[in-house]
């Protein structure tokens, strides 16, 4: 089974994330890493291939530094990697991202399963997987908390606030996985050494036949007009419980008419 895992290189959520002057996410001053939620997709791909056969290709679209996300996935055990990078890509929205990723999946070719994370930890829209399915004309099987692949079809469990669904489709398909599905492995020493020899291809938009006018900040179908740091919350009142803490709490709630 040939699996492509889409992974994103994101600013570390523990860092002090901010915006650039042009209102795009600052990807320079905060350390980047493989989006934690995409590790679950990499892990699931590795498990599927280990229990059968095939190959795992990790794919990212981003700045050159995004190679670091691919490296981590290769260290975990993926077989090869593709980085789509191009100056024109900067500032792309999910519409453009899904276009580029879809074209890259087609160019990789012969793909049985496209795996993605639940959401990118920076944009966290959770829409790229659905958009990818739309663009590739493949079944969309998203938010999987359990996944089985058997006899050319895929079956998942998808939970919502109101119900739990079992969804089935035939391969090839686009599947996104949640952080409930597995426990991602840490790269082993062997994995780290092996990753150095694994092939990483770098593609430009031209390699994919995508016109630069279709991506990037200027092509975005929605425009960010302003970003504003939220004013720091005015320091609240903090009391130490010396026997009256609960009553003080109830008084506060009553003063705000919650009681």
């Amino acid at each position, binding site marked *: 089974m040939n699996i492509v895992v889409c992974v994103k290189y994101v600013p570390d959520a523990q860092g002090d994330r901010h915006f650039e002057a042009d209102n795009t996410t600052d990807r320079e001053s905060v350390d980047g890493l493989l989006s934690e939620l995409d590790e679950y997709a990499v892990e699931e791909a590795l498990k599927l291939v280990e229990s059968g056969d095939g190959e795992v290709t990790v794919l990212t679209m981003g700045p050159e530094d995004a190679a670091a996300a691919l490296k981590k996935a290769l260290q975990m055990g993926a077989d090869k990697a593709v980085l789509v990078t191009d100056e024109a890509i900067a500032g792309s929205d999910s519409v453009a991202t899904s276009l580029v990723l879809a074209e890259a999946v087609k160019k990789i070719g012969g793909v049985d399963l496209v795996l993605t994370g639940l959401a990118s930890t920076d944009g966290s829209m959770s829409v790229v997987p659905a958009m990818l399915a739309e*663009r590739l004309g493949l079944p969309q099987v998203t938010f999987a908390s359990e996944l089985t692949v058997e006899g050319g079809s895929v079956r998942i469990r*998808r*939970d919502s606030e109101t119900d739990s669904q079992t969804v089935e489709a035939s391969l090839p398909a686009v599947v996104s996985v949640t952080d409930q599905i597995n426990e991602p492995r840490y790269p082993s020493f062997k994995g780290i050494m092996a990753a150095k020899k694994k092939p990483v291809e770098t593609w430009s938009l031209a390699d994919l036949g995508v016109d630069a006018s279709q991506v990037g900040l200027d092509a*975005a*179908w929605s425009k*960010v007009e*302003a970003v504003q740091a939220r004013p720091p919350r005015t320091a609240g009142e903090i009391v130490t419980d010396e026997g009256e803490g609960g009553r003080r709490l109830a*008084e506060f709630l009553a003063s*705000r008419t919650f009681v």
Partner: protein
Amino acid sequence: MAEVLVLVDHVDGDVRKSTAELLTAAARLGEPSAVFVGAGADAAKETLARHGAAKVYRLESADLTDHLVAPVAEALAQLVERTSPVAVLLPSTNEGKEIGGRLAIKTSSGLVTDAVDVRPGAAGGVQTTQSVFAGSYTVTASVTKGSPIVTLKPNSVPVEEAAGAAAEEVVDVQVSDGAKAARIVERKEKTASGRPSLTEAAIVVSGGRGTGGDFGPVEAFADALGAAVGASRAAVDAGWYPHSSQVGQTGVQVSPQLYVAAGISGAIQHRAGMQTSKTIVAVNKDPEAPIFELVDFGVVGDLFTVLPQATDEVNARKG
């Protein structure tokens, strides 16, 4: 006046509160038209009319409900084509966002997800407000391309009642085979907890690792306040509370009037799910816990003494 399509979120015709919020927001942009998919439209009609729906499109084909996301996106695209709405508003659920994403591509329209506000744009289209990076930034965006598609977070827009005609039209939808590729083969409704739903509740009381697995005081306090109960991931991972109650980046995102965090440290991933709450209260033994940076009122103390005392006091005040 131009139409605004609003996708109704419902369980068998029982309309969720977020739909009333969408209809209220839609009325600022144009004339709200409710799009009702599945069975139960008769039961829903009164609620939709009361919140200003001028029209109700009824889409009843089983093709729409037996398959994941794609058929509804296709049906909405057909409606967009026909009605050229000024905007399409969807609930910010996983499904709402996915439908929005596919619809954006099908109709070449701009998309904004997880908006907390929406209004007419200065240069046409719509303008939205979002809260990003775990609530540390507010982003204003405008969408002018196509029929702007916006998913709105629950509890963002105060509901206003307004009489609408709710004129019904049964829409005959054509679902392609391609859109029927992902079949829902089984569906288990979650058993109701008897408490308000987490995303709709005006008050949420959440417990974390600090409960040590005993959610009793958290639940009792929640019940005194008529609140929903949430949990941190640490509590969920320990098996103390179901995953559907997890608040945070990879759980549910809530935005209630009041959020109470008990025995929760306030990790960035937890904040991502509650930081837009209007009033925040915490009870934690550790005065250094990061959650105290967010609170309007905090008690440094043991939740096993503070919460029961607060519960008694609340119950006493209610009389």
